[in-house]
């Protein structure tokens, strides 16, 4: 128990914040606070006492072996059905995130870039995005964009991601290559301008060029008012999206947190290294 507390991300972040931003009140800056979260799928507990705090302006990388619960974390945050929260809390901008429907979370500024983006035959990409953006704006009490305003915004974002216009006229993700699907996720993120974006293994299946484009898309959006949780297997993406914090997720909870150098250590020694250290620690 003590071991887990010693490596709790809350602690590291508080230390970090106290070093960098002396004056601002801590709570004001907190965007997402996950406390002692337990989540199950079909009766099997996947997240076991996970805690993580993310402040506005930060980029957090969550790394971990297969089956550690990384995607579950993303899905729970986005509100996918089929996940049972058995204990713990998640607050987003001071609200109980778990009370909100997926569409309410989106309007509140949450975005999940899917590990496996879904193909939706028959629904035009442009129409889909405009419907999504305007639904969010409507829910926030903002004016909806007309097609001219919308297309202007689309063109700007397309250019950043080097995506072809043609993608807009196709059905959502239908017939897209793996790389196009992932870039389309980042394009959607750019267009929807979320406050908190969770990227679920956006790097998987990407070649170096596509990964750079994705990273450029993310870096262009880095902002003191916006936060990212980058879920990944490999350290490589983090060469391009440089994180403020790296967390290791294993067996359903964060077992170690650190700065970006932690990612290199993981790359060098593998996840087994964490397990060994943990064993050593408990012993």
């Amino acid at each position, binding site marked *: 128990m003590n071991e887990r507390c010693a490596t709790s991300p809350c602690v590291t972040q508080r230390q970090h914040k106290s070093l960098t931003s002396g004056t601002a009140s801590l709570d004001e800056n907190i965007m997402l606070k996950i406390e002692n979260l337990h989540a199950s799928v079909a009766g099997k507990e996947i997240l076991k006492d996970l805690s993580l705090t993310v402040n506005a302006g930060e980029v957090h990388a969550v790394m971990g072996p297969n089956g550690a619960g990384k995607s579950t974390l993303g899905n729970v945050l*986005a*509100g*996918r*059905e089929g996940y049972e929260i058995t204990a713990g809390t998640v607050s987003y901008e001071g609200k109980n995130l778990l009370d909100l*429907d*997926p*569409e309410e*979370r*989106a*309007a509140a500024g949450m*975005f*999940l870039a*899917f590990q496996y*983006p*879904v*193909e*939706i*035959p*028959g*629904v035009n990409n442009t129409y*889909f*995005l405009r*419907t*999504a*953006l305007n*639904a*969010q704006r409507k*829910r926030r009490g903002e004016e909806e964009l007309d097609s001219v305003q919308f297309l202007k915004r689309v063109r700007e974002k397309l250019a950043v991601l080097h995506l072809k216009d043609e993608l807009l006229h196709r*059905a*959502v993700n239908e017939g897209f290559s793996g790389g196009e699907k992932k870039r389309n996720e980042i394009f*959607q993120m750019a267009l*929807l301008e979320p406050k908190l974006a969770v990227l679920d293994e956006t790097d998987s299946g990407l070649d170096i060029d596509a990964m750079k484009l994705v990273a450029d898309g993310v870096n262009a959006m880095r902002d003191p008012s916006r936060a990212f949780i980058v879920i990944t297997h490999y350290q490589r993406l983090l060469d391009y999206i440089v994180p403020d914090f790296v967390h290791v997720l294993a067996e359903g909870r964060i077992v170690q947190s650190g700065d970006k150098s932690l990612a290199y250590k993981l790359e060098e020694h593998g996840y087994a290294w964490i397990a060994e250290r943990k064993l050593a620690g408990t012993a």
Partner: protein
Amino acid sequence: MSVLIANLLDDAPFATGPDWLVQAQRDARSNLGESGLPDARVEAWKYTNLRQLSQRVLRRGDADAPSRDVDSKLLELPGVEHSRIVFVNGALRRDLSCFPLAGALSVVPLASVLADDADSVKKPLLREYAEAESAFAQLNTALSGSGIVIRVAANSTVPEPLHLVFVGASAEHDLAWSARVIVELGTAASLQLIEHHVGIDHAHLGNVVSQLVIGDNAQLDLIQIQNGAEASTLIRRTEASIASNAALNIHTLELGGQLVRHDLAINLDGNAARLTSRGVFALRGRQHVDSHLDIRHHARDTTCDVLWRGVIDERARGVFHGAITIERGADGSDAMLSNKNLLLSAQAEIDTQPVLVIHADEVKAAHGATVGQLDDHALFYMRSRGIPEAEARALLTMAFCRAALDSINNPALLDALTVMLIERLPVTQP
């Protein structure tokens, strides 16, 4: 004899027309008297029970049809604004119609053809329906309903679509009306025909037989829009003969009605004749809609491509029977049939039955039917982007249906049909 048939045939006047027609009516009446309406033992009517209908007492025709008020808005259809032929409770209403100018397209009331040139419609009117399954076609012959004869001269392309509207208008009594549509396209002629059923606030029985003859190299684009009154009963039979190198493209949209049966009996009679059939049925409440396709390849290198989508909600029931027969000698035929359905409620029902019978040697044929629900992954994906659940469901359902409508090459009409469809689709699912 059922109550329905007995009442309708009682003292029914015979047609004012040639002796052969009167004789055909006598024969049809005697056949109906013997066999009555089909029951569940007749395979083609296995899923559509007529017991309730057979006990109804309906007035024969509507004597007041010529003076019934019809809201002109009901007749309008975007993208189809030129010629319009309107029937109200089965009676042709010249005052509401706009006949095309004389030219390659000729549109003449059946009564006039019977008076002037009866022999030219002898073949379709004498078409024999022996089987119990065709009771309504026999009833159509037995009663002297109205009708329209549409002809396109050889080598002529009619530029504007022809709009045929059947309006069910509210009356003091529930009634039964019948109408016949005869369409003949000469060699290399082409026409777009819209068959449109609308109505409000009535529980009539409509009975329409359409007979299409498509000459060599001709092309008929037929768009059938059934958006009838909620409580109405509508029985239609669309039969076609497609000659060499000719094409029939049918889009069928079934939205309204309480009890609806539509038989499509299509014969690919000439070499390289082509049929495409696209259909959507979107049902709710306690609607029962039965679409029965019987497609026969009689000649070489004929093709049929059938794609139907069904959305069934609440306690509605959809029936789809898609049968393709490739007759001996129809080598080189290519047949494709697909029917996919969305069941949106636990009480909804779909009976889908693709049937393929092949008597020829060298053919390509594929068929399939599926029944499913909306894709949860797609639904969550859309919601995660901010689209409210009800809207996401509607969008996905619409996309599912659009696959069968996108080939309509009249954008204004396609938009109008999309709106009609959206109005029928559920938007407030749990």
